[in-house]
């Protein structure tokens, strides 16, 4: 058989072997058998030198054609096999994606801190700074400098925890003391005005204490956020506008506010602010006609106390009420938490129950 025929036969056989290779390993065997150092085609190419001159050109040409054909077939087959193998591999690696992901526990913020953050962010956005004060206070900062002198009936509005006074001084009333746990964050107002000159724009979140038995709707320790603005030309309308903006940010743009006259010793005029009920939309009743339980049918939820800073308070901190005016407000954080999340029992806020904490 002529060499050319042998080459053609080799070519045909190689292409058949390539086609028959079941995986990349078998294909590699074929390649080695044909194109390797000791490969069949390599043998022919090496033997070219011994061929008579007149055959050499044709054989060389054929051998090149065969080599190109085999290489090309190898490459094609290799690509096809690799593709199939990748598909098979991926197929084998498929998972049940409904299996849970690998646990990555991210810690949670306490509900009350979260709400304080939210409130702080709203007021920071309005140019307020965040101040703080101590939880134990003197009678002076908690009451007297807030225009509630000793024996003032307004003191009865809050049941105070008294601390043993280590100066040894005795209070005029048995069981009371000039050292106490603050009943309100309002004392921060006085400290702030003592230490800063107007304009003053602050809020002061913090823990306060009142002597209430812990039950689903009361805690002896809870949180308030105090706000204080002192500047030139501040009006009651500014107070309303500020708190109305706050309520819309906090509870939603559809919510309305209303202001009811009230009494606090350190503001004059004083008011309580309500936000419209989010459950019944302020109508006081549900779609089925039942009375709304959230707002007890009133359509309104009490949210904070506020008022224009009483000139007597300015007197304690040496600010001229003829030059400056301002407003103050205070809100209960737990109250807001209940309104936003329907927490059924405030005591859960202090239990540290993981099943509760992990929800926020």
């Amino acid at each position: 058989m002529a060499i050319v025929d042998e080459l053609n036969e080799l070519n045909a056989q190689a292409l058949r072997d390539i086609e028959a290779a079941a995986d990349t390993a078998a294909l590699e065997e074929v390649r080695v058998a044909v194109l390797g150092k000791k490969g069949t085609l390599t043998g022919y190419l090496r033997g070219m030198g011994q061929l008579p001159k007149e055959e050499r050109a044709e054989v060389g040409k054929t051998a090149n054609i065969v080599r190109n054909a085999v290489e090309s077939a190898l490459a094609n087959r290799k690509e096809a096999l690799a593709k199939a193998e990748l598909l098979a591999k991926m197929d084998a690696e498929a998972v049940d994606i409904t299996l849970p992901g690998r646990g990555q526990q991210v810690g949670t913020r306490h509900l009350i801190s979260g709400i304080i953050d939210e409130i702080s962010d709203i007021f920071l956005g309005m140019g307020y700074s965040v101040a703080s004060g101590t939880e134990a206070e003197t009678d002076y900062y908690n009451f007297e400098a807030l225009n509630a002198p000793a024996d003032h009936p307004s003191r009865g509005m809050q049941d105070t925890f008294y601390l043993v006074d280590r100066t040894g001084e005795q209070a005029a009333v048995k069981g009371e003391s000039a050292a106490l746990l603050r009943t309100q964050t309002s004392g921060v107002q006085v400290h702030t005005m003592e230490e800063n000159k107007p304009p003053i724009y602050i809020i002061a979140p913090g823990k306060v204490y009142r002597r209430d038995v812990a039950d689903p709707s009361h805690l002896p320790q809870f949180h308030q956020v105090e706000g204080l603005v002192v500047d030139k030309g501040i009006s009651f309308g500014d107070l309303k506008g500020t708190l109305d903006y706050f309520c819309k940010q906090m509870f939603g743009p559809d919510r309305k506010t209303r202001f009811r006259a009230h009494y606090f010793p350190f503001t004059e005029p004083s008011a309580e602010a309500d936000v419209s009920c989010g459950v019944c939309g302020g109508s006081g009743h549900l779609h089925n006609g039942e009375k709304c339980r959230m707002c007890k049918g009133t359509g309104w939820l009490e949210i904070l106390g506020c008022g224009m800073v009483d000139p007597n308070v300015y007197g304690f901190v040496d600010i001229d009420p003829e030059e400056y005016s301002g407003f103050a407000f205070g809100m209960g954080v737990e109250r807001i938490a209940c309104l936003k999340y329907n927490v059924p029992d405030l005591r859960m806020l202090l239990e540290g129950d993981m099943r509760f904490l992990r929800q926020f």
Partner: protein
Amino acid sequence: MKVSLKWLSDYVEVPSDIKAFCDKLDLTGTGVEGVDKLGAAFDGVVVGYVETCEDHPDSDHMHVVKVNVGGDEPIQIVCGAPNIAAGIKVPVATIGAVLPGDFKIKKSKLRGVTSMGMCCSKRELGMGTDHEGIWVLPEDAQIGQPIADFMGLIDTVLDLEITPNRPDSLSVVGFAREVGAMYAKPWTNPLQDMAAKLELAGEVEPNAVKIDVADAVRCPRYSARVIHGVKVGPSPDWMVERLAAIGQRSVNNVVDVTNYILFLFGQPLHAFDLNKIKNAEGVAHIVVRAAEDGEKLTTLDGEHRKLTSDMTVISTPDQGAVALAGVMGGLDTEVTEETTDILLETAVFEPGRTSRTSRNLGLFSESSMRYERGVDDHGVEARSAAAAALIVEVAGGTVARIGEDGCGIVDVWPAPSEQPHLQFRVKRFQAMMGADIPRDFIVDTLERLGCEVAQTEDADVLSVVSPTFRPDLPREIDLYEEVLRLYGMDNIPTTLPAGRGRIGVRTNAQLVDAKIHRTLSACGINETMTYSFAAGDDLDKLRMKEDGLGEAVELINPMNSEQAFMRRTVVPGLLRSVAHNQAHGVSNIQLYEIGTVFAAHEGDRKPKERRKLACVLAGAMDDKGWNTDPRAFDFFDGKGALEAIARELALPKIRFKALSAEDAPHLQPGRAAEMLSGGDVIGWVGELHPLAVAAYDAEGPVVAFELDMAALERNARPARDYVDVPQFPGVERDAAFVVDEAVTCEKIMQCMQSAGGKLLESVHLFDVYRDAERVGEGKKSMAFSLTYRAADRTLTSEEVDKAHEKLVTKVSKATGAEMRG
């Protein structure tokens, strides 16, 4: 305060729409806490029409009636009342109704005749003492209407929150004035008419009553009248009903009048039995003075009270204290059934002392509540006259001509209060409110509230005189509030402050807080809050040393003994939460709290406060998952969290120092460390001592740490220093040192750092291995991966080998380590 609208409507027009009325009250400063339609407790009691009335076949006084109560068929009732008759309308308690005294109406048989309910008298409905027969209702009463509704038509009682600044509103008349001002409607004050009814009788008794007021501050005014020949007995129905409507039990006619006047005018009164305070000469010599320390008085409630000199008493020279001024009368001189002669006290006492007396004795009364808010010293004589006239009207007797001129009153009034004269600057007011509230409205409102308003030469300024019954109006600003609240706060347009130059900033402490929260959250730990209170034995239970924690801050009036102090460490609260979770089947617990601890110091009024960051870890981070295994928390989880905090706060020179059992008895020895930043102690970390954990009913191990927030804030840096990202490759070499157990990781690391020279970039511990056979008893193998790198070139292996060899030699020499192959 409870207000009967029926009573109120005698003096001012009450709006018929109760809900709108209540809303308006709420908006103008009088909180409505309850709306009680009288008789709401009487479910099942309805208006019935007696269709037929026949004699009971087996009784000579009972009747059998058929009553239409609005149902299909009339019901049969056996009734024993003499005034029952066909054709009248009566209240019928049907089966299931529960009348006052927990009297449940059931189906019954009376002498063989079935009775399906009961026709009721007023008394049976708790509406007074009239028990002469069935309550015959007006003809227009609607058959079948619940009696609660029917009575609601008669009266509605509002429970009002009168704020402490408004003593004037603690009376029907004062509230009528308020309602008049709210609606710009006229109102009438019955005082002058009632006082005008006073008639004096008998001889002038110039010496019957003598009053000495020792201290005009304690008692600005004291007046007395004498009424002879009263007959103490039941009060008339109208008065009983009025008092009952507002929740006041009828006592007797004389006491009821004092209560009636108190609720009508806000003037507390006290009636003494004259014969019990007169001396042998027949003179009632009243001395109003400070009590003596330790002086005793038995008050009307039967309690024996020990008084202090801060309290004021009504006394006589013979008997000593006979009443506690402004708070409560004495038992020995009270009006009883036998009383015939009365001394009627109408007085004004100092607010502050009255309040202190009440608080010191835990004795609060309708009188003390009004005195501590301020009772008007003007008009006392008229209110006293009205009261005396009313006593005569309901209890008989005559008002004596006491006093030297026989005017019927002995009245000591050393220093009448003065009315404040104020300016009202209209423009300033409008600017401060942010609305152009009309001048006419201002004038009208103030006048309706009892102020005298006049123009001044300056058109912008009004001259206002506040009434003495409004002690809350001594300043211009107080008048602003009055006008604003009645103008309606809702009518003020909303604006935002125009103020310049305000910048909202967070303090360093707040920024540090936020970073800590973020870091611990990323560590998988949950923020919580626990009580700031502590039990007296908390430190003992926790086994924590008191050193550096200060003395415990003690509460004077704690809620309970478990919360009698303020905490000095946050850990017990967290341990209680661990126990709570474990008791509820939750075993994986990761909690932290940033909270305040308190320390007392002798001589300091205010305790010192520090903020602490405390954390407890118990169980594991998570339950076993299909592709994860839980790993129980140990010391290094706590330490790891602290390392994360140190990194995030860029704390310099962080070091952990072992704490001995003596230093930290609350921690398990050998698993306890102190965290330092340079020389500054930041806090401690460790596994809590098993006995401490058990003392809080928790199950260990519990990993915990407690850091001082001030120390963190002090050392925190706003950012870490930037280090260039390496341009040239590093070379890694491993080295395993076999050392004695006593050789710490820190020690080896320090040796490596100093021996490694410039080329040693970082050291990473990747294994600690113990095996008695392979590494030897009491030894451990510590395997480190070391990275060598130069910033300016690629290191050759020769360079690295040389540096590494030197390092190994030095470390081995310094620590006695052997190399492990």
